[in-house]
């Protein structure tokens, strides 16, 4: 997708109706995440659009990188700290920090404090950041009490609950509730909706063959729903499942981040994908 489409869209898109509390004086920092930054910028712009529609004043600090999961999950606590120092510095002065990924949000909310156990000052700062950080969909629904309307997408979707969002942050109702307001979109529930897709960050390359067996099974379940769209809240899982479906030749189902659908960007993204064929 080109930059122009996104810009045009953000400026001129049909707006969701704002039905939320007075949040406009609160400053929200968007933590984009590295997968969204490199692989799927449209998720970042969709998040930006949704947050602004919800009445937030959003800022995207340019000095941001990764949440540190690859280091943390590999057991490199020192590397994790090095990454966390600058994330904390960049984001601790916002009223809220919002992340369009369950696993990156959970990393900041749950795991930063694990690596600062012996550093009281940083532990306190990490705890503060944990307190103000939210996964995108739960922030929109639980904190902003935002209800989208006026978005249309014809077809059916199935939803994969990413493990970190689902288990660590209890994100479950929020995306379903918001997607229920998308006109023309039906939900085909996924068998094993909360079972791991086999991504697991570094796991999927370290144990590529086990991961493959897991995602192959997930792909079967997805195809059985006969849905047009596979939606989720984590780019890692979505890339894993979409990549497997494409490798197996299943082009009939499109993977999208929930935010992309809710922001009304799906038609452009799909149109663009179709155009590139």
């Amino acid at each position, binding site marked *: 997708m080109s930059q122009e489409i996104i810009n045009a869209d953000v400026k001129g898109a049909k707006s969701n109706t704002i039905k939320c509390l007075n949040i406009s004086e609160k400053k929200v920092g968007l933590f984009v995440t590295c997968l969204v930054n490199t692989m799927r910028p449209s998720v970042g712009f969709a998040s930006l659009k949704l947050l602004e529609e919800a009445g937030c004043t959003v800022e995207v600090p340019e000095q941001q990188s990764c949440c540190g999961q690859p280091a943390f999950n*590999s057991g490199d606590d020192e590397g994790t700290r090095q990454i966390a120092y600058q994330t904390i510095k960049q984001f601790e002065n916002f009223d809220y920090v919002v992340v369009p990924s369950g696993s990156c949000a959970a990393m900041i909310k749950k795991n930063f404090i694990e690596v600062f156990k012996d550093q009281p000052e940083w532990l306190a700062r990490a705890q503060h950041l944990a307190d103000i950080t939210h996964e995108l969909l739960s922030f929109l629904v639980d904190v902003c009490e935002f209800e989208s309307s006026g978005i249309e997408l014809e077809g059916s979707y199935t939803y994969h609950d990413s493990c970190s969002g689902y288990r660590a942050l209890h994100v479950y109702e929020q995306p379903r509730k918001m997607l229920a307001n998308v006109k023309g979109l039906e939900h085909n529930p996924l068998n094993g909706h909360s079972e791991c897709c086999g991504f697991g960050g570094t796991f999927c390359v370290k144990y590529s063959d086990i991961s493959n067996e897991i995602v192959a099974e997930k792909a079967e379940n997805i195809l059985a729903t006969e849905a047009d769209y596979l939606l989720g809240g984590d780019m890692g899982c979505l890339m894993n499942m979409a990549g497997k479906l494409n490798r197996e030749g299943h082009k009939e189902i499109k993977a999208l981040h929930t935010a992309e659908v809710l922001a009304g960007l799906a038609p452009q993204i799909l149109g663009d994908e179709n155009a590139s064929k």
Partner: protein
Amino acid sequence: MQANKPENFYQNVKDALAQPDLKMIIRRTTDKAEAKRAEAIANFPGFENARKQGQKVKDHTIKYMDHYLAEFEKNALAQGTIIHWASTAEEASKIVLDICRQHEAKKVTRSKSMLGEEIGLSHALDNSGIERVETDLAEHIIQLAGDPPSHIVWPAMHRSREDVIKLFREYHKDPTYSEEIIDLVRSARRDLRTKFLTADIGISGSNFLLADSGSSCTVTNEGNAELTITPPKVHIVTAGIEKLVPSMAHAVPLLRLLTRSATGGEITQYITFHNGPKRQNDADGPEECHIVLVDNGRTKMLADGMEEMLRCIRCGACMNHCVVYKHIGGHAYGSVYPGPMGSVLTPHLNSLEVANKQTHACTLNGRCEEVCPVNIPLPKLLRSLRAQSWDKKYEPLTNRFVVKAFAALAKRPKLFQLVSSCGVIFMRLCSRQGWIKSMPLAGGWTRNRDLIEPESKTFMQQYKAMKKAKSDGA
């Protein structure tokens, strides 16, 4: 079947994935266990409270472990039980063997005990020339087949009915020629009955040790523990020191959790508390009772901040719900304890150096913790073992290099953004029709799946351009 070694984990996984029907075999058991557990918990609204209570019982006992161990010892001695202490697996095995030799035992019956497997008792008995009779039906099957266990609750789940038919025809004195499962079970019943009644020593494990009475408790559905223990003259219990609870009343919540989590039943058919040797005029029962209390890495877990793992009641729910276990099965782990709980335990029973690869064979998806009846934070413990093996440099050098390089970049956001935008250019060069089929350095990913083509510019590049356009416009 030869037991796999934990240090050969990569090869074990490869072998497991190459077995065509392994997945079906595993699923036959785990899917049923998963469904039945879910049903049992849906029928028990107090389950969450029971879990909290069960966790508290274990945490309390672990916190005052020395107090309760001393209590247990005192009360067991008062019952007439002989108490033995073993720091290591070898020591524990040797103690049992010495007792067997003292009594000139020719035949011993055993009821299923994972601790017995852990301390290598089967091998020790076999090597000493004593006839060992496994009496749990699954253990009986794998004994005949010469297999290691593949699950802590269903150790023979990897063996099909056809395998059992062959084994029973070959080894049973009066075998069945029927292929019906009931007839196979009857065949084993006939074969084992005389052995129960003629054994010199019965060896069991223990699900709980009650500090206030010095009792050990066995939990089975087959009733083989009582049949193992009652007829012979001598009863030997081998138990890990973490099996302690303050009293029978404290074992009750754990019993409620154990069966529901293991098989989805509400209670096992047989729960028996054993309190020392037979009383003077008792109608039956052993004349001598020994309890071997085994450490074998448990106090090390306490010292290493892994005390939460000592809560484990060996229900197997974590493996039944583990996406990795469900694809590679129990044997691949190369340990008596497979799956998530095994990946935490094995490094302590064996060593982290040989068993660190298993700690990485986990997506940290949290399902095991979600179903654990005593709330063991298995992903957190696995992650902390990864941190230990990182510090000890057990990681392969290439992994270390990649992670370190990534961390070095990620702590410098400007450089990170620059490299990200270069990465996008590189990826787009490798891409055809919106997808990357293969790419240098990405073989782990593209061996099994495609990679989406990124947009032409990173988010940050686009965002900056947008902001600039806005301010220029203004």
